[in-house]
């Protein structure tokens, strides 16, 4: 306890928010937590805390009475939460039943977050202390997930029975009960930061992106990513007096850009998605491989649709999983192997769907087709020169039968000419090919300059 409050005193004197936040972190060694817990008992704890916190400051830096009261509450909740955490851990190691579970830990940690919340609203906690909110919020989410998992694994034994009896049983929301509650708590913290009217230097607005990122993570895990949109709306409404995103630490910028990018991606707004994901990619710490892999998972499909660029070998090299996901598709697109593309898409279907990129990748088929048609065009060679020394001109009339043969080459299934015409008309409509179809002659007349836009031919 003495060590804890000497850190607390240092942090208060220096105005060091991160150091202060460490004093209420549950992520300490078991011995340290146990030492804090042992240093007082349930009867004496409040008096002990009051004494320590009161003595942690002196002179002109002395904490106002109200603030002391607020911190006593916070540390009281912290002490109780440690009590629960240790009890859960003990019962896990020695197998004995205990009064505590991750659900009780979640509840007592929620009390701590509420005590902090009150501290800001009524006890005059200053804005530099907001890292405390980060630590409290971050672990609330961790405990919520643990509580849900614990309850679900206990419940799975009799879930069959429950399903028989309860008609209105909603497994989805039941499963994530604590995490959903956690999202509500985090939303309160979001509003606590957003609504601060203090001048920007001493505003809780500096906590906004950290909290938003926590909310995004929570909503994504709850499979209700769309709720994140409300957060973005509230954010942009208050944007006027908000510091710009680039004024925040890079960890927060990257995370925020990633989630905003993915949100745009899910709405098929690929240009915006690419912008945010590229920003996240550029700012990301070069050593954060797992995060870089996640960014690329969405950035690669974006590139395919917006700029029609494929990832190079060099880009995929460090990520075996991405290589497995994208290399076969990229190869097929490039070569125009339509049938192989379909097979590759089918092959990865489960994982593509899980990552919500299936529909986007499916659109890559157009490009594979375009590349196949272009190969037919190239294979057609050149017209016989009309006059000596004239620049060779590519044969620009290609019969539909040739395209049909190319399309059915991979699958060996015959495709009738109407269907081919339909595919060709689509290509022309999408501006992937230039020319017109002459039905009576069964020919496609391609544009003499740039039959396949975006290329030299």
């Amino acid at each position, binding site marked *: 306890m003495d060590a804890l409050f000497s850190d607390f005193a240092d942090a208060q004197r220096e105005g060091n928010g991160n150091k202060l936040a460490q004093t209420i972190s549950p992520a300490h060694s078991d011995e340290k937590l146990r030492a804090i817990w042992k240093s007082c008992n349930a009867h004496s704890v409040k008096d002990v805390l009051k004494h320590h916190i009161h003595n942690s400051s002196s002179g002109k830096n002395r904490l106002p009475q109200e603030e002391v009261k607020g911190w006593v509450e916070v540390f009281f909740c912290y002490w109780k939460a440690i009590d629960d955490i240790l009890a859960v851990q003990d019962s896990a190691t020695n197998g004995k039943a205990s009064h505590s579970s991750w659900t009780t830990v979640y509840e007592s940690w929620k009390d701590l977050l509420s005590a902090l919340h009150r501290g800001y609203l009524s006890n005059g906690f200053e804005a530099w202390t907001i890292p405390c909110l980060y630590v409290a919020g971050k672990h609330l989410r961790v405990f919520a997930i643990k509580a849900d998992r614990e309850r679900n694994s206990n419940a799975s034994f009799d879930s069959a029975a429950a399903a028989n009896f309860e008609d209105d049983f909603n497994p989805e929301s039941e499963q994530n009960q604590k995490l959903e509650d956690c999202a509500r708590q985090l939303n309160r913290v979001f509003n606590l930061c957003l609504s601060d009217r203090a001048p920007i230097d001493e505003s809780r607005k500096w906590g906004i992106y950290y909290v938003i990122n926590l909310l995004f993570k929570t909503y994504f895990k709850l499979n209700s990513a769309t709720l994140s949109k409300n957060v973005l709306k509230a954010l942009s409404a208050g944007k006027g007096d908000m510091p710009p995103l680039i004024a925040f630490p890079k960890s*927060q910028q990257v995370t925020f850009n990633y989630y905003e990018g993915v949100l745009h991606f899910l709405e098929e707004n690929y240009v915006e998605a690419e912008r945010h994901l590229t920003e996240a990619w550029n700012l990301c*710490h*070069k050593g*954060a491989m797992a995060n870089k892999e996640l960014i690329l998972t969405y950035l690669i499909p974006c590139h395919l649709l917006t700029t029609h*660029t494929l990832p190079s070998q060099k880009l995929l090299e460090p990520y075996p999983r991405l290589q497995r996901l994208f290399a076969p598709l990229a190869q097929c697109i490039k070569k125009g192997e339509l049938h192989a593309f379909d097979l590759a898409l089918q092959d990865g279907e489960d994982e593509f769907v899980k990552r919500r990129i299936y529909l986007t990748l499916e659109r890559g088929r157009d490009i594979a087709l375009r590349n196949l048609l272009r190969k037919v065009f190239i294979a057609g060679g050149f017209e016989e020169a009309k006059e000596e020394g004239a620049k060779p001109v590519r044969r620009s009339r290609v019969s539909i039968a040739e395209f049909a043969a190319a399309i059915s080459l991979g699958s060996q299934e015959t495709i009738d000419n109407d269907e081919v015409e339909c595919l060709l008309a689509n290509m022309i409509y999408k501006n992937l090919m230039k020319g017109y179809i002459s039905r009576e002659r069964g020919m496609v007349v391609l544009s003499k300059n740039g039959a396949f836009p975006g290329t030299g031919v």
Partner: protein
Amino acid sequence: MASTQNKSDSKSEAKQQPEQQQPTEQKKAAALEEDDEFEDFPVDDWAAEETEAAADKTAQHLWEESWDDDDTSDDFSAQLKEELKKVESSKKR
């Protein structure tokens, strides 16, 4: 070189598919259970030199600039040419 190699790989994979379906499916299910959440960074902030953009000055080369494949020497192109010749000759007949 590399491209032809890959191609033959994907071909052999396609051939083996029927026998292999069972195990790959199981493997996939296991992989899907991993949680892939955006991780907390170990540090809060870092210098511009530590960013991905700085680490890779040649960022453009990460994307293939053109999606045109002018390599007409691979198996698939050869196959395609054969096929087109057939179409041609059937027309002349």
